[in-house]
């Protein structure tokens, strides 16, 4: 805290950002560089350091000068991520905290080692093919979903018993909603 206090008024941002789709965080730092201009900063990303300037910024957009090159940018915060459009590509970043919480649950939505089958996409439950107590083999179809006219069958990841069905046919569900719970049979069971 002592070090932080010393930086008060100088350090604008010091963040650990994780580009979406990767697990490697990047530490970035932004410090005002008043001598060079009102919107000039020293920017550091990892070992890379340079001078930047933000020109003509408006709501969610602006121009960035970096190394003598000026590029337009757009950004928006969406869910727990910040989306940045620059140079024809959209980049997504999340904070270190969001990365940690996501990593602790970083299996694909519907492939559930825990036996929780969740919706991999928002959509409508078209058909439920199992009920509580049913025994299913690996690969058996459990639920059929439809979203934006695409049909998708969710199957059992391993041989198991259906312990609960948490959805109803015809209902809309959000991405990640729990649909079916499975339990692996005990050894010999």
């Amino acid at each position: 805290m002592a070090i932080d206090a010393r930086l008060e008024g100088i350090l604008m941002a010091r963040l650990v950002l994780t580009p979406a789709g990767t697990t490697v965080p990047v530490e970035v730092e932004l410090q005002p560089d008043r001598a060079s201009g009102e919107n000039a900063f020293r920017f550091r990303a990892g070992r890379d350091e340079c001078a930047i300037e933000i020109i003509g910024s408006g709501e969610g957009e602006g121009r960035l000068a970096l190394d003598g090159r000026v590029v337009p940018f757009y950004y928006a915060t969406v869910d727990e991520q910040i989306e940045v459009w620059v140079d024809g590509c959209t980049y997504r970043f999340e904070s270190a905290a969001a990365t940690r919480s996501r990593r602790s649950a970083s299996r694909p939505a519907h492939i559930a080692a825990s036996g929780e089958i969740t919706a991999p996409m928002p959509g409508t439950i078209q058909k439920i093919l199992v009920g509580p107590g049913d025994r299913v083999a690996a690969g058996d179809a459990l639920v059929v979903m439809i979203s934006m006219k695409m049909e998708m069958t969710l199957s059992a990841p391993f041989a198991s018993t259906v312990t609960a069905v948490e959805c109803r046919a015809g209902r809309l569900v959000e991405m990640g909603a729990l649909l079916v719970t499975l339990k692996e049979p005990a050894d010999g069971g």
Partner: protein
Amino acid sequence: MFRKVLIANRGEIAVRIAQTLQEMGIRAAVVYSDADRTALHVARADEAYRLVGVTAAETYLRGDRLIEIARSCGAEAIHPGYGFLSENAEFAQACGDAGLVFIGPTPAAIRAMGDKISAKRLMQKAGVPVVPGWSTDGDADASTLRREAQRIGYPILVKAAAGGGGKGMRLVRGESELAAAFEAASRESKAAFSDHRVFLEKYIDRPRHVEFQIFGDHHGRAVHLFERECSIQRRYQKIIEETPCVALFPERRAAMGEAAVAAARAIGYTNAGTVEFILDESGAFYFLEVNTRLQVEHPVTELTTHRDLVAAQVRVAAGEPLPFTQDALSQDGHAMECRIYAEDPENQFLPSIGTLRRFLPPAGPGIRVDTGVTTGTQVSVHYDAMLAKLIVWAGSRHECLARMRWALRHFVVLGVRTNIEYLQHILAHPEFVAGRIHTHFLDEHPISIASADVSREALAVAAWASRGDGGLHLAGSGDGESDEAVSPWRSTRGWRAY
């Protein structure tokens, strides 16, 4: 000519049709679901009528309500666009019965071509080459199915008789997959088209999908407006279309064009339609199906023939002769279309829903964007995931590719995931650039969009954009809460300073 036409559709195609109607001095009436109250097609129309409900079944598929609205608002004709009721013969019939002109082919032609099984038989009779296959009008028992599949030879496709757009279609590589694929295709077909019948067809390796735009009028004239190559598909859904097709030299183009017109004549086709062929590596072509509607990809034809297909549809429906003869039609330059979808290429292309926080399509010479969304539009699960069609024209394919790359690089969409970068990667692929494409292109050349490099510019913007949140305030003063009211991160609190 009509004074008012009801557009029985939504999204980009409703917007596009409204423009032509208004240019022709015809009032454009539209309908909207509760989810589409603030949609662009409503804003662009001269008048708009509510359809109570949200799902397609409650709204845009309610033929009875659409006819009621058309009659009560004084429209003389209905334009169905594509999808929804555009290929529904009963709806076309009901329009006629209610004294409304259905802007499209006759119910009989829709019926004849809508059933893929009977369409194929009809074309075979008319001398148009067809792909080997097997079909039945009744239900298929397992042993017959196995025997016929064996005869055709794996791999085979199971396709919905009433299908289109890849729905109710399954690829079967061996006998073990046959029964499950048959059942799934049947079920999907039942859900999508209320018709469970499916048929088998020989799967042709590395074919090109080449379709011909046809047009017929009520005065016995039928023409084609050349081809569109739609080989770049993902899960049987077209994503990039272009014209001309690089694999067609003049003689083959003429032969396919003649076959397309012969197909049109065989069913006395009126209005706009598309005859789809597959072209194999040896140059042989086979009839696939006829789409009895305006196609999604019609703009590439418009840009190279300099014709407005919707205007021609309206004129023909009003009883006028076709506004062009075969001899007057020619192809000028090269046009390409990319379909921009709200989907996540990094997560199995699952639909991406949310609010469009920023939607800025590119503009400039030779660029056309057909869209039904704007910044602020909610992309929902209820309708198609296509946000826009980006269409470009240039003098040659080479210039066209450069222009499309430029346009994609300047297309800003924030708020939902899109396939824009995925499309950029396809357009940069040397095989695509060389024109060596086929319908399995994306399976054969998987496009990985994951990049190891994180742009320094993007990191700088992210840092700057989040400077008020957690940066100085958490690190410096230890009082992160006080600034939260003005922070864009208020609801997340996720950003941490170190």
